[in-house]
């Protein structure tokens, strides 16, 4: 990772100094071990701020909405999931491919701080390093080594596109693609009866505080004004009554249908850990089943499945499942 970080800094300085771009979007290291956050670099001298470590999880693509239109060109770094999000923005005609200079950073997984915390490894932790498939937790006076996948985000473990599908310049070598089954949770829920499923989701939705982090972080949520913010008509009330929360999550998931790139950011940022991935993946799974496999974000030229049809489509609403 260090090597890639050096390259990042060098490339960022290069494209800024050559005038190719007037902004570089990357990640910067914060004070605390898990803090790696988006940074906006407009001066080559600041390129040294760039970092690439196990916590560079935020997707930089969505910042283009605010940044790209008044810039000449913006350079930014994409992990595999980020690139899919970018393509979704492309499909929604929200960004201009020519104005983005994309560095691809193949990614074999990032560390979920909550998993570290749950394992009780967080107290006094200074930083986490990776060598091959092994993590080293570095403390003031000791180190601890462990297998990396234990601490990866769930979304990383099921990642199907760790190598960016769109880029101008590749940093590092492509990493092997070895995703775990991503529909396990969905299938498990599908196996339950309808009331059990309801109770499960009722519990999840009741926790929602409508902070809108899931929406705001989502690369497929790029509306100028969100339907949930509109006051006329008022689709969604501001009270976090259960049915309003249900409306929010069902509608949002449905707006994602055929557009969700399965980057898992919504579930990551949810402060109350609503398993939003399962909602999105249910829709992905149904689309795959009913209309053929479709991976949003892979090819922005493809027509998304819910704005097209095939005269021979099944009428899946005629299936009557015993409940």
């Amino acid at each position, binding site marked *: 990772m260090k090597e890639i970080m050096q390259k990042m800094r060098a490339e960022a300085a290069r494209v800024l100094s050559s005038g190719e771009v007037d902004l570089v979007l990357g990640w910067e290291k914060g004070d605390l071990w898990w803090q790696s956050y*988006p940074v*906006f670099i407009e001066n080559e001298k600041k390129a040294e701020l760039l970092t690439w470590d196990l916590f560079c999880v935020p997707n930089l693509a969505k910042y283009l909405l605010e940044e790209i239109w008044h810039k000449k060109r913006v350079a930014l770094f994409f992990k595999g999931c980020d690139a899919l999000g970018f393509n979704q923005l492309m499909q929604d005609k929200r960004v201009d491919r020519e104005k983005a200079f994309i560095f691809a950073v193949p990614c074999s997984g990032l560390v979920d701080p909550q998993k570290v915390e749950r394992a009780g490894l967080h107290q006094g932790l200074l930083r986490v390093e990776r060598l091959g498939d092994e993590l080293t937790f570095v403390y003031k006076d000791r180190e601890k080594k462990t297998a990396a996948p234990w601490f990866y985000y769930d979304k990383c473990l099921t990642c199907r596109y760790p190598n960016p599908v769109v880029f101008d310049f590749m940093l590092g070598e492509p990493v092997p693609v070895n995703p775990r089954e991503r529909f396990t949770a969905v299938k498990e829920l599908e196996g339950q009866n309808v009331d059990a499923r309801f109770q499960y989701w009722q519990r999840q939705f009741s926790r929602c505080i409508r902070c809108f982090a899931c929406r705001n972080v989502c690369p497929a949520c790029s509306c100028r004004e969100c339907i949930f*913010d509109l006051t006329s008509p008022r689709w969604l009330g501001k009270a976090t009554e259960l049915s309003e929360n249900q409306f929010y999550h069902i509608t949002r998931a449905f707006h994602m249908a055929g557009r969700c790139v399965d980057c898992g950011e919504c579930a990551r940022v949810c*402060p109350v850990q609503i398993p939003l991935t399962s909602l999105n993946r249910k829709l992905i799974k149904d689309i795959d089943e009913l209309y053929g496999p479709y991976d949003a974000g892979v090819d922005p030229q493809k027509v998304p499945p819910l704005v097209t049809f095939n005269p021979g489509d099944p009428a899946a609403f005629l299936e009557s499942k015993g409940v």
Partner: protein
Amino acid sequence: MQEIQKARLPQLWEYLAKKAPLYLPQQEDGVINFAPWQEGARVKLESLNTVLPPKSIVFPQWETYLHFTQKARELKLTPTKEPEGSYILFGVRPCDVAGITVLDRVFLQDPVDVFYESRRRCTIISLACNEPDISCFCSAFGLEPGFAPAADIMLWDGDKFLLWQSLTEKGETLTHSLTDLLEVPTPAETESVQCLRETAATVQEQKWGLDGVKERAKDMFNAPIWDSLYRRCLGCGICTYLCPTCHCFDIGDFSRGERGERFRCWDSCMYKDFTLMASGENPRPTQKERVRQRFMHKLSYFPAQHGLYGCVGCGRCVRKCPVNIDITQVIKEAGGSISCA
């Protein structure tokens, strides 16, 4: 000073819950929040901060305060019954107790918010922190991880037992009713409290000096930090909704036909329509103004209005911000000094 064996806690909770609704930190789907106790509850006292602060109990995310009926030209308004106040909050960390005292400044000032006032009649049993997290910084605001002066009862974790000290008359009365469950600690145990308090204060890794921050923050309105900090902000409401002191609200109506109700609900100064006026004007048009408002409010405006900081250093926003916007960086910018233990 008294103590209760941890093994007897379920008994205590059962007893308390019979007296009044009892809220304590419980785990559901991996998320720890204050929730009413019931048989079989998965209580999690050992975790430091709940995801949502107990603000969500004293100042719920939304509450209806009036019902209306509108028929032809006639309008009837009926007040909602004021909420029950005789509940117990158990296991509130000192920073969150301090958070409630911040809310008091807002809601108990004239005109008094009677709903809040009623809810505030609750009994707060605080649990001291033995080992604060790396992201905690309550001491920065003169608070102490091992002690919550505004609580009714203070508890310290002595491993196998909790040391029990009532701080108010209300706390004392409750303590008296628990003679069957509480025991008298040994002098050594009593003395250990001081040690626990001191250790907790030492363990808090970052030592803050906030001298003059209030004053300097006042002049930070045009500071360059705002030009960079806001850019990564997603404009979500995590920091404000999870904050134990944020209290901004909105008022909304819900109606079905001729009947309806008016409710008050949390709102967030991070949202782009927060200050949007009917005319379409917005005095805080970009995220920069909104981010600035949030931090300036905590560090300058609130102190100016109420004489104390609007932050208690619980660290929730630091931990949960999806893009690591960190108030401690702002504090440093405002001249807060920091040194590591």
